[in-house]
């Protein structure tokens, strides 16, 4: 058997790991794989052209951008911030668990750019989490302060990753559809996206539990220092 086409997989891995332009890496790997499977250059270009053309529906998802952009023009991000600010006064654990759910639900409804590190975590979620932790547990030593801020950023990631795939018109779902369709297994986007729901629930439970565990751990430490559970 000719094992050389496997080199294409190695090229993808190495190319991404070395941070070359991903489009160049992907096309380079496709051409190499085709040539090593003893297709000629014209046949490889044809295969690539046909495959790219057959999968155009994946990039159709971008037509939602004018809607989102227009709403941003009229303050969508600011509105999301106001909602988050409404949580002022909650404990750190409660704040981040609710933010986790908010991020998962909005992403599942196709609004994955509500939230995000520069837009929401840095100006809002992280400072609010820190302030809430200090209110419950007193001034935080440096390492615990870092843990709280990092947990705020982690919560944004977990909420986005395990919410967005419930929205069917998103690149990852359509990429799955495209790969399976090329292999002869036609699927629909909704068939795929409903299977993102069990993992989304697990993510909420696991990460939510870890957020509250961090809050409790800070509480135990401050309890030891001050001799009482609550300052």
């Amino acid at each position, binding site marked *: 058997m000719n094992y050389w086409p496997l080199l294409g997989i190695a090229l993808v891995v190495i190319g991404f790991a070395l941070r070359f332009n991903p489009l160049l890496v992907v096309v380079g790997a496709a051409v190499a794989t085709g040539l090593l499977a003893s297709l000629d250059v014209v046949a490889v270009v044809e295969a690539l052209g046909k495959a790219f053309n057959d999968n155009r529906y994946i990039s159709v*998802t971008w037509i939602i951008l004018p809607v989102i952009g227009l709403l941003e023009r009229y303050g969508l991000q600011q509105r999301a911030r106001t909602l988050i600010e409404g949580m002022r006064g909650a404990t750190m654990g409660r704040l981040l668990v609710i933010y986790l759910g908010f991020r998962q639900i909005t992403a599942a409804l196709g609004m994955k750019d509500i939230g995000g590190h520069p837009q929401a975590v840095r100006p809002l979620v992280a400072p609010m989490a820190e302030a809430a932790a200090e209110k419950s547990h007193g001034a935080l030593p440096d390492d615990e302060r870092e843990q709280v801020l990092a947990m705020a950023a982690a919560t944004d990631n977990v909420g986005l990753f395990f919410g967005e795939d419930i929205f069917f018109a998103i690149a990852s779902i359509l990429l799955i559809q495209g790969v399976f369709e090329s292999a002869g297994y036609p699927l629909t986007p909704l068939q795929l996206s409903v299977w993102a729901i069990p993992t989304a629930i697990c993510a909420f439970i696991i990460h939510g539990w870890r957020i509250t565990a961090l809050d409790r751990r800070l509480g135990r430490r401050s309890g030891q220092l001050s001799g009482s559970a609550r300052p």
Partner: protein
Amino acid sequence: MITYEWLYWLAGAFFAGWAVLSLRDGRIGNAAFWGVLAASFFLGSHLSDFANGVLVLALVAIAGVGAVKRSAPDTTTPEERAAFSARLGNRLFAPALIVPVTAVAGTLLYNYTPLSDTGLFAPRRETLILFGIGVLLALAAAMVWLRPPLLAPAEEGRRLIDSIGWAAILPQMLAALGAVFALAGVGDIIGGLAGGVIPQGSVFLTVVVFALGMALFTIIMGNAFAAFPVMAAAIGIPLLVETYGGNPAVIGAVGMLAGFCGTLLTPMAANFNIVPAALLELKDQNAVIRQQVGTAIPLLVCNIVIIYVGAFLLWN
């Protein structure tokens, strides 16, 4: 009958609009990139495979020389946005909700009523076509309600698409790579090799190898999208679907999510893991990853169980 071809014309019109606006803005590279993509959407079904391949190479060349850049079309100031947000309130979310509601409610209505007998939509294409209709409805609603300048949705869309840049076609390109892998017989080769390594008939172990492989390749490459065609061609399709008869929808969907667990663990996914540590001025650049380990690993175990139960125990 409404087919994907209609969607391609719609998306082609959006890309062409962004190309024209980029040209007017003096951004030749962006204009060329969105223009070639528009040509692919308008003409792709009528061009030869070779001509489509040349369009792909042109897109990659434009992106490869770094010609696609961010843009800054005129928009509202943060102060104006805050004022609008205060005045319009939570109703701002409503137009965005039109899109998923149209698509999901429309799909259910179409499939579970006699409407499906009309053959209005091409089979299995109804959800994405309804998504396109939802976008048009949402745009119309927002235009009537907010009364922005006529070009505002196009310019705001350009602001966002240019911030994504060439990465906008990466998923489509990766799906094409998956197709080339399939054509070159990569799945058969790995299926043969893995068949020798994984104990014969152990479905559960194969699921574990698939999910761990997704996570591991994602950790190395920093991108679950890139890992997906590789692992689908190697194990997902030849072994889990073809040899063991698993449910392809579960294997695909949850396999991708196993990859996302890998994204939580890798400094290679800099936008998610390293940039926030810098934004928050943390001393340890891996501080965010450290907080994610305890979530990612149990969640990966959950994904393995979900694939095993959903794709095999409940399916067969």
